[in-house]
């Protein structure tokens, strides 16, 4: 444990912030973070107003979003809640970019600014820089440029082709954005210069490719015999937007470019969707650890700590399932407690820990946490590190809900018989692969009416929500010809299908 040497004077004793104070606190926080071995992108702190925070918040934290009504809706909603006082504004927004941009809101007090610096500019920042999903799938050094390119390109399209036409395409792409990511193949790096240079080239190339597909259609007379063999695509495609970008017969080049933009941005956010618990847990763990260190060194006052702790406690609270405030498991609470628990297992393991975590019990906690941060996503992180002690602390229980039964069943609780089940169930709960329906491009009737068939492979008999019909309309708009979606069960039997023609 750190020795409590109160040799320093607190940096400040009021809750007002100044640029000077931010710099001083930042210097100390940076020093402490480095001592703990956090490796980060350079930090850029930006002071903004509450209104600007609302702007940023409603464009999913993108500093330069292209314009679209859905962001307006978010803004209207955020503003309403903020004015009503229902919601404090999110006090941190941090951009996965190099340098890492972190927003500090003008209205916040000094302790809150310090918290945000520690949380976002060091916690999230180091996660962005080192987690394998982020290093593999995102290019922090070029995202800002790409967003700028996207914003300008879309604005230009609005002028050239009309706002409505652009809005239609964007609406349709947004409906599919979760199906516009490559899950296994690393995407090429983004760069604005490259994008610009290549864009013209690509427009021509894409168009020629599309034509190629339709040109290689065998003659009618010839293919009657081998109807079974000819299937396009030869393998089902999981990236629906990519497939549309490359193969939709009727899209204009600029429309393909917009499909690509939505796809690229979805890809950029894909790792964040898979690491919510870890990312927030990591950042929360570090703001807690760093600010406590700050206090131990006598650099901040008790009032400072009380304000910080109050905010921290709110963030990591976990209402139980029967509470009015319950809305699922709080990723901050779960993540923070797991990180803290790993440290505990390293520093003060008991017999249970030694049995469950022989590899890390008693190891160096900084190295162990660092390893966990780098090499996992939520699903595997929970599967690997959720300890029996935490399951007991959270009093977790697993429910098995099958619509074949009239009642739901408690399949496991926080006892030795249940730990494994609870852990694997919770882990599965963060598996995007099973949260999202499995829908792939199955075939294109290339020689017939050019219709596109999507296939939904049911997982545990879960049906698609009704809104799928709306999504199919959007797919039809992009594809330009009829689109069919089929749901198949475990035996590959089609149990439901729905067809839609493109809008005239």
């Amino acid at each position, binding site marked *: 444990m750190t020795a409590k040497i109160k040799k320093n004077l607190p940096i400040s004793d009021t809750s007002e912030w100044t640029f000077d104070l931010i*710099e001083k606190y*930042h*210097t100390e926080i940076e020093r402490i973070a480095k001592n703990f071995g956090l490796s980060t992108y350079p*930090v*850029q*702190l*930006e*002071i*903004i107003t509450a*209104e*600007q925070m*609302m702007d940023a918040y409603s464009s999913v934290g993108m500093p330069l*979003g292209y*314009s*679209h*009504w859905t962001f*307006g809706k978010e*803004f*209207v909603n955020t503003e309403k809640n903020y004015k009503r006082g229902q919601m404090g504004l999110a006090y941190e927004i941090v951009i996965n970019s190099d*340098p890492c941009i972190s927003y500090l809101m*003008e209205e916040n007090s000094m302790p809150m600014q310090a918290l945000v610096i520690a949380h976002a500019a060091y916690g999230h920042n180091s996660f962005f820089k080192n987690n394998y999903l982020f290093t593999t799938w995102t290019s922090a050094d070029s995202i800002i440029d790409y967003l700028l390119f996207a914003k300008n390109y879309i604005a230009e399209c609005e002028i050239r082709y009309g706002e409505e036409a652009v*809005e239609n395409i964007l*609406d349709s792409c947004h*409906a599919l*954005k979760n199906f516009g990511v490559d899950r296994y193949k690393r995407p090429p790096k983004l760069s604005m210069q490259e994008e610009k240079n290549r864009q013209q080239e690509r427009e021509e190339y894409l168009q020629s490719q599309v034509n190629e597909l339709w040109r290689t259609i065998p003659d009618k007379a010839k293919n009657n015999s081998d109807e079974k063999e000819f299937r396009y695509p030869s393998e089902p495609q999981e990236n629906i937007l990519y497939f549309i970008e490359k193969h939709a017969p009727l899209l204009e080049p600029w429309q393909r470019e917009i499909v690509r933009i939505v796809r690229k941005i979805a890809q950029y956010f894909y790792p964040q969707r898979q690491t919510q618990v870890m990312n927030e847990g990591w950042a929360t763990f570090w703001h807690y650890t760093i600010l406590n260190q700050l206090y131990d060194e006598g650099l901040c006052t008790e009032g400072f700590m009380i304000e910080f702790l109050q905010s921290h406690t709110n963030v990591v609270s*976990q*209402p*139980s*399932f*029967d509470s009015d405030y*319950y*809305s*699922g*498991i709080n990723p901050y609470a779960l993540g923070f407690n797991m990180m803290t628990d790993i440290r505990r297992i390293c520093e003060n393991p008991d017999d249970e820990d030694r049995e469950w975590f022989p590899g890390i019990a008693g190891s160096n906690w900084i190295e162990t946490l660092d390893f966990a941060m780098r090499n996992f996503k939520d699903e595997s992180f929970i599967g690997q590190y959720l300890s029996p002690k935490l399951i007991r602390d959270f*009093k*977790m*229980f697993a*429910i*098995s809900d099958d*619509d074949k039964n*009239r*009642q*739901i*069943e*408690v*399949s496991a*609780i926080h*006892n030795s*018989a249940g730990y494994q089940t*609870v852990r694997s*169930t919770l882990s599965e*709960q963060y598996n995007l692969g099973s949260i*999202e329906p499995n829908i792939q491009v199955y075939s294109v009737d290339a020689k017939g009416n050019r219709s596109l068939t999507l296939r*939904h492979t049911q*997982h545990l008999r*879960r*049906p*698609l*929500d009704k*809104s799928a019909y709306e999504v199919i309309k959007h797919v039809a708009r992009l594809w330009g010809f009829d689109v069919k979606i089929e749901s198949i069960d475990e035996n590959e039997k089609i149990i439901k299908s729905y067809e839609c023609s493109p809008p005239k």
Partner: protein
Amino acid sequence: MAQIVDRRLNGKNKSAVNRQKFLRRFRKQIKKSIENVISERSVTDLDKGEKISIPKKDTSEPFFHHGQGGHRDIVHPGNKEFHQGDKIPRPQGGGSGQGEGSEASDSGEGEDDFVFELSREEFLQFFFEDLELPNLVKTQLSTITETRKVRAGHTSEGMPSNINVVRSLTGAMGRRIALRGPYKKEIKEIELELDNLLKRHNETDPVIINLRERITYLKGRIKRIPFIDSFDLRYDNRIDQPVPTTQAVMFCIMDVSGSMGREEKDVAKRFFMLLYLFLTRTYEKIQIVFISHHTIASEVDEETFFYSRETGGTVVSSALKLMASIIQDRYPTNDWNIYAAQASDGDNWHNDSKICVELLNKEIMPFVQYYSYIEITSDRHQNLWEEYTDIQSNWDNFAMEKIEKISDIYPVFKKLFQKHDA
């Protein structure tokens, strides 16, 4: 070392474009919501923002996701009494349990509504757009100016009642001092000379007697200086300065006989609202008098005006009589700008229309700034219209139009007021 950037002065309305896009996208729903709002609003209550609620399902964006059903396993925190294998009834709201529970709302808004605030400008924009009314607000009514007496120094001529006593007396005193001066000086000199002479001569000396007479003469002159002279008088000066009259009264006259249905009343209400809005741009203070009539007219409050429904025939002149008498009693024309808007389906007891024309010509039109009549009917013109056509040709400040449906209001309104400008 971190870079600290102060972005506070950067544009803060980055979302304004998106907000506009949002409003444009849901124009139809917002308009509908505004229509509901308007029917609930008071006529004078038009000029502010509004809370708009539109169905949430319209604003939601679809995406592929699982619906209810099938099998799923979920972990929840906070177990108190469950044991492995317990069977419990499925909670309402489906099996997901992931935050799809009730979001309690204290303001009584349904969960199915997306509620937000329109600013005043946006509200007016939508309101006018609804009436296809782009630039009404920019049009300026030519304001009739009223003069007011203001002080403007003093004059030497005027009415006795305006004499400024202090000024006059000050002037008089100055004049007296000025006029007395030479005499007093001479008296002083003579007295000095007398003193010298008396040392050598006695009183009977003719020189001395002469001097004494001179003193008596001069003292007489001094005495004869008037205490106040006519040209001492100063009068407070007041001049006429043109000032716009800042108050206006608006008469809303509506036929509430059985033939006016809810729809017609709604059209009338919008028209009155427009006129009110129009006037608020020009006048500081506006009063509204609601006169409803069937066979007899009465002054009513707004609620009654728009929502009560009477049956029976129609005698328009009763309302005009009432209006004329209210003008006489309460709204002297030099203090008030009087506007009137009359809405009717044009149906009138046919002998009465002539009386109306008479009343308008003699007792109303000379006193009002503007009188507009709208006939709300989809039929052909009714008898009141024919009679009013005469008035229109006689008076510049009279206008009438026919409105069939809500969307006619603005063009009609514009026409009415353009004519006035001409």
